[in-house]
């Protein structure tokens, strides 16, 4: 049984009376035990919202009007309050984009650990100062920080260190799944690479499932087993990471891949994706990517494509699906 199974998740955001923005539409997400999955898309595509929805961290004015989320067999979409809190221990955790914003600036790091561990303590747990300090030191070591960090305040640490502390705090509850929401976006390239390496190693060592949310497909492909691409609130492609760099994909994925290049090459060409994503407060007709897509056909304007199989995964593109189907047929004839 998959660790996380979400079906038909919809999230609507209502910032003011009369305004409704469908941030996530009909998302199906399946994560197996120990799998590392990436969720990629431009800003505003709903990836963070989906990540928050899956960990039940949505706050008004966002809400999930429909959808099922089964975590380890339990439907967590309907849990609330104390039950939800209990599900978080040994369940799932969330690591956010900006370490600075997620850490309390007037508390030492040690105090952060104490807060998290005592908030989720089960009766009989040892909460003595020594025990907590030892546990915190273990966790800090796992994220490659030294114990001296415990007595520091968040503003005394660099961005990379703060992010590692956030990761350590997430690990402290021994979750089965961690959602990383743009964990390295605010960091510079070298620190970003180091933190991502740490995340990868931890995931491999401890075997938790992980969802990595990012706008940077390059970073995600280097870390994850499988990638889901989101556009305008929908998941438009779902493939193993190893096949992303070649072959045919959803035109949006292909456009994103064009935004990367090797700076050492003799000729460097960089693509961008012109146009803007659609207005999510309006109902959409047909494929939401059609206005920006070079492969648009008549059917794209009228029918919203489902996730067609596009071996080895799936992609929501009428044109690509047809091409793959034709190839199959030609192949079988030969």
């Amino acid at each position, binding site marked *: 049984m998959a660790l996380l199974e979400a079906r038909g998740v919809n999230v609507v955001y209502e910032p003011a009376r009369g305004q409704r923005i469908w941030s996530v539409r009909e998302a199906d997400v399946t994560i197996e035990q120990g799998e590392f999955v990436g969720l990629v898309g*431009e800003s505003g595509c709903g990836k963070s919202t989906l990540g928050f929805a899956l960990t039940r961290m949505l706050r008004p004015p966002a809400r999930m009007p429909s959808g099922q989320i089964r975590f380890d067999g339990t439907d967590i979409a309907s849990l609330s309050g104390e039950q939800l809190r209990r599900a978080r221990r040994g369940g799932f955790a969330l690591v956010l984009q900006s370490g600075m914003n997620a850490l309390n600036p007037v508390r030492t790091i040690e105090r952060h650990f104490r807060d998290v561990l005592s908030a989720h303590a089960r009766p009989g747990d040892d909460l003595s100062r020594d025990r907590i300090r030892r546990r915190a030191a273990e966790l800090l070591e796992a994220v490659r920080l030294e114990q001296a960090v415990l007595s520091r305040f968040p503003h005394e640490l*660099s961005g990379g260190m703060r992010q590692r502390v956030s990761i350590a705090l997430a690990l402290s509850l021994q979750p089965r799944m961690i959602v990383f929401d743009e964990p390295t976006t605010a960091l510079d390239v070298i620190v970003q690479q180091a933190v991502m390496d740490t995340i990868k190693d931890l995931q491999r060592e401890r075997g938790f499932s992980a969802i990595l949310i990012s706008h940077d497909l*390059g970073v995600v492909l*280097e870390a994850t087993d499988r990638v889901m691409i989101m556009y305008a609130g929908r998941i438009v492609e779902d493939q193993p990471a190893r096949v992303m760099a070649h072959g045919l994909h959803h035109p949006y994925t292909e456009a994103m891949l064009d935004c990367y*290049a090797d*700076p050492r090459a003799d000729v*460097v060409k960089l693509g961008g994706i012109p146009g803007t994503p659609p207005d999510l407060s309006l109902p959409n007709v047909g494929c939401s990517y059609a206005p920006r897509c070079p492969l648009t056909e008549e059917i794209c304007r009228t029918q919203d494509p489902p996730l067609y199989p596009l071996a080895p995964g799936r992609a929501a593109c009428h044109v690509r699906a047809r091409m793959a189907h034709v190839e199959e047929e030609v192949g079988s004839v030969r």
Partner: protein
Amino acid sequence: MSDNEVPPLTVSGVSKVYQVRGRDRRTVTAVDDVSFEVAPGAAVGLVGASGSGKSTLAKMITGSVRPTSGEIRFGDTSVGQLRSAGLRKLHHRVQMVFQDPYGALNPLHTVEYTVMRPCQNFLGMSAAQARDRVAELLETVGLVPAGQYAAKLPHQLSGGQRQRVLIARALGSDPELIVADEPVSMLDVSLRAGVLKLLAELRRTRGLSLLYITHDLLSARLITDEILVLNQGRVVERGQTKQVLQLPTDKYTIALLNAVANPFATSRGGLGGSSPRGGTDEAPSANGSKANGRRTA
């Protein structure tokens, strides 16, 4: 303004040392004896991770911070000695494109107001003249129809659009040198090419000099002719961009190259062998955070 009127920017032996008050009194050297030149119409890149001193250098070049030693000359003006009146004159000629497209725009001012002000302040234009110029500038940066964008507020624009507004603002005073401080690092990857192409285009058509500051070697490769790699305030490598990237000699440059996320790279080992990963958390001397040494001023 024709090319031969644009003076070179000369940075000679510039250092910046901060006295840090606090638990332990110590000095922090943000920039250590850096020298380089930006020839008229050239595009030079300052590349490094955070703590390398590149932002401090940018601030010294634009007059926000005074160097502790060394000299910065833009044509016949010595930048380090300027006070407020002189700084204002400097800003007429040396403009900056900021990193955070949302933070650098006043959330309560329309696009038109933001782009108008330098035209009025530096070019002495009346409000009506400035508005016409704003329309031209918005078209130049690709925000068309200009009339529609002029009335917008920052929260109504996307990140790429905001960055274009910032570029239009920088062009308002008809500058000779533009210092772009990580202009695309806060944008989605898909939006970067557009803004970079705009900068390259502007440089070509207007004969501007460009000082491009970044930690991302890919964008540096696209825009700059020559680069300087900074590590802990010192220049560790310099040369023609393509050459430096294809044949790097310094360990730090190699680390930066390896850090560029590239889905098409077959291996991350890069050139010159040992990748500085594996076991250590941060790459060597990239970020002296553990030793509490580095601050990006």
